């Protein structure tokens, strides 16, 4: 009984923090729109807010973009629970996409096999920073940033060297992108179950359902299993987890492998939709980086990630509809503002929480926490 209450209460705090920062961020966005183009600001803002529900194709697009975001968000959030900052979701996403597409085009496999390859690609790309961290104590942030770039250019090189992968091999002109799956391998396209017809959006498929199921599985692993218990113990206090007989090195590697696998699955799901082709460019995938704000907005909670990914996707689709009155970048600024403010409200929550705890401490025990106020006072003095 008390357990339930406590749990929802804590969740409530996070939820309020996220909602308040979201509203404040949107307000900030509205002010920006007013500054840039006062005449069109009202209309543009309504576009952000309402586009996603105006028509079924738009809604389908929201779901379609949310799926890979959810996976990279889960990836970042999962690593974070183990005390790791996986900034390499972008490279893992790309690696996953590459292996999935190789399976689809070069090896002519069907979609389930391609997804597995995507998972494998991401997992390997996540494992390397994990191993470096665990065995040589190399900061995972540095390694995973490097591996974003290594991943990107490795994919470019490998794809160029395998001409069958390119669109030009399948009757298109472009040599800068992979083949369209509609021409290369219909079996590799994710099932659409008629939803594309129903919602009048060609990219609509089962990806969003897969991602929601994965989010629930991740929640279960973290919350209900000994494995999740060990990973979290490691994330909160590496020394104590070692004291409890947990092998922190193994936990770090496991956590990065799973985080990478999640991002890799995201890459597979996105490119196996058949509506996008992997462009061989010099830019890192934004999908991977957007996983960071998705995870932050959800406070790394797997179930929260479902909603934060949907939300970010929703306002992105809204942002697209603001053009040409406003630049596409405007929506990125607004997203950034929301994340920034959510970090603030996390801080507020922390402060409130501390005050609450201190009060509890006194009520619970006869001992006054003499040392703690000392330390705080020392800092403020």
């Amino acid at each position, binding site marked *: 009984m008390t357990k339930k209450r406590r749990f929802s209460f804590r969740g409530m705090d996070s939820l309020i923090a996220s909602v308040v920062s979201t509203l404040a961020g949107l307000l900030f966005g509205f002010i920006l729109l007013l500054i840039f183009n006062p005449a069109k600001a009202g209309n543009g803002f309504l576009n952000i807010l309402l586009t996603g529900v105006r028509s079924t194709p738009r809604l389908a697009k929201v779901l379609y973009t949310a799926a890979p975001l959810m996976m990279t968000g889960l990836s970042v959030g999962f690593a974070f629970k183990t005390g790791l900052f996986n900034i390499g979701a972008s490279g893992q996403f790309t690696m996953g996409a590459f292996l999935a597409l190789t399976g689809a085009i070069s090896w002519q496999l069907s979609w389930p096999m391609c997804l597995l390859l995507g998972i494998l690609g991401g997992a390997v790309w996540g494992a390397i920073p994990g191993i470096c961290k665990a065995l040589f104590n190399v900061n995972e942030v540095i390694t995973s940033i490097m591996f974003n770039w290594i991943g990107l250019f490795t994919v470019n090189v490998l794809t160029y060297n395998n001409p069958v992968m390119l669109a030009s091999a399948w009757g298109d002109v472009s040599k800068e992108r992979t083949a369209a799956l509609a021409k290369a391998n219909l079996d590799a396209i994710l099932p659409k179950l008629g939803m594309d017809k129903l919602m009048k959006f060609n990219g609509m498929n089962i990806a969003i359902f897969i991602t929601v199921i994965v989010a629930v599985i991740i929640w279960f692993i973290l919350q209900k299993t000994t494995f999740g218990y060990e990973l979290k113990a490691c994330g909160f206090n590496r020394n104590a987890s070692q*004291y409890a007989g947990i092998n922190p090195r193994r936990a770090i590697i496991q956590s990065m492998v799973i985080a990478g696998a999640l991002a890799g699955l995201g890459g597979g799901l996105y490119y196996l939709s058949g509506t996008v082709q992997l462009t061989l460019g010099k830019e890192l995938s934004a999908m991977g980086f957007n996983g960071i704000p998705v995870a932050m907005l959800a406070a790394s909670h797997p179930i929260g990630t479902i909603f934060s990914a949907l939300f970010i996707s929703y306002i992105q689709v809204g942002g697209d509809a603001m053009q040409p009155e406003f630049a596409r970048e405007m929506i990125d600024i607004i997203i950034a503002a929301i994340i920034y403010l959510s970090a603030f409200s996390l801080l507020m929550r922390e402060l409130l929480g501390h005050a609450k705890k*201190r009060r509890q401490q006194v009520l619970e025990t006869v001992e*006054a926490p*003499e040392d703690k106020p*000392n330390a705080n006072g020392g800092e403020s*003095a």
Partner: protein
Amino acid sequence: MDDFVIEMLGITKDFPGVRANDDVNLQLRRGEIHALLGENGAGKSTLMSVLFGLYQPDRGRILMNGKEVRINSPNDANALKIGMVHQHFKLVEVFTVLENIILGAETTRLGLLRKDEARKRVMALSENYGLKVDPDARIEDISVGMQQRVEILKMLYRDNEILIFDEPTAVLTPQEIDELMGIMRSFAREGKSILFITHKLNEIMAVADRCTVLRKGRLMGTVNIGDTDTHKLSRLMVGREISFTVDKKNLEPGETVLKVKGVTVPSKLHKKNAVKDVSFSVRRGEIVCLAGIEGNGQTEFVSALTGLEKISGGQVTLKGRDISQATVRGRSVAGMSHIPEDRHKHGLILDFTLQDNLVLQRYWEGAFQNRGVIRGNEVRAYAEKLIAQYDVRAGEGPDTFTRSMSGGNQQKAIVAREMDLGRDLLVAVQPTRGLDVGAIEYIHSQIVRARDEMRAVLLVSLELEEVMNVSDRILVMYEGEIVGEFRPHEVSVQELGLYMAGAKRMEREGVRA
């Protein structure tokens, strides 16, 4: 008329949800040694922080020589010639002694340091008070006792007249404590006034003129030491009679449980070994105490014993099994439980709930998980059982986050967890550090219970009182070696102190079984 140099009148200080000081008066006479006595959490440090300018009181006044003063920062305190030796020294490790002493009060000419003048003054002070230091030694290379001298010289260098000592004896050997008391007396003779924070009654009886007692933030009274004794003081401090001795029945030790042979552990700080060729054994039904001053290899030894660090030589045998290379969990399963030195660093995952912490050593056992899925109900029931059995106070029961619990209850939770494992060897490292008298009594009784249940106990302690009261056998560790072995009734505290300081050593013939 009394000649008060400092008067703190009606000091009240609130922290969110707690009144750390409630209408406290403290009057310090010129040239006296005034002890401030109270348990952990009684408000001593808060009161001194108010005097030192770290906190502003919510109510109350501070008078200096009868005139009201405002102390808004340690700089103000310094200007009023108030100095403080903090419990945890505030020294720059990589600076020399001289540099530390003059830090913040440097003599300069045209912006350049004038160290030679400072050196003369420091040497003169050091000579005058018999505080011998090497001005060019680096702080990181000198002993804790020496570091304390540096802190004292810092106060003298600034011509402080009011000297606050916050638990100064915690890190010292009995001999060093005697020395410190001598120094304090000589300060008092010169007319300096000393405030001496402590919870050790015998020290107060030995050196103080008067004593102010705090309990739970309230003033219990100020007494003349000449009119009181340790029993009266302890009753004022705790509010009830406390037993200074631990009740133990006589017990004949049984078979050997732990055998340590020639164990050597490399140091992380320097190239030498932190633990050198240590051998001893612990039998069922006995409490063996590893005594010594902090930093003499005890921490490294325990890390190696429990599997957190590797040994570079020697052998550890538990119940006849060689566990020298076993993992932490391997050793736990083989029969070892461990109450760690630092409960926040190792003992608890503060952001886990109490119930998750109580199963920290056994969440993987069949009783608490089924194919990797945690059996929430079993964990909860087990936590509730331990909470009741060991009287762990936590506001929300098993769901309390351990971070929000008091130190005493955190430690009780650890003790409950480790005792209930039912292992044959209990390794307890400074299990009573920072706890109040009630909690200390309780933890001691649990350790003795483990012994009475014919388990083997290895207690690592810095507190001589604890060493003398609880142990059946004492091993003294100095610079990584065992330099003496005693039975508590065969040795005096003074004698132990000589061994702890490295002034004496005993040639041991093998291991006394």
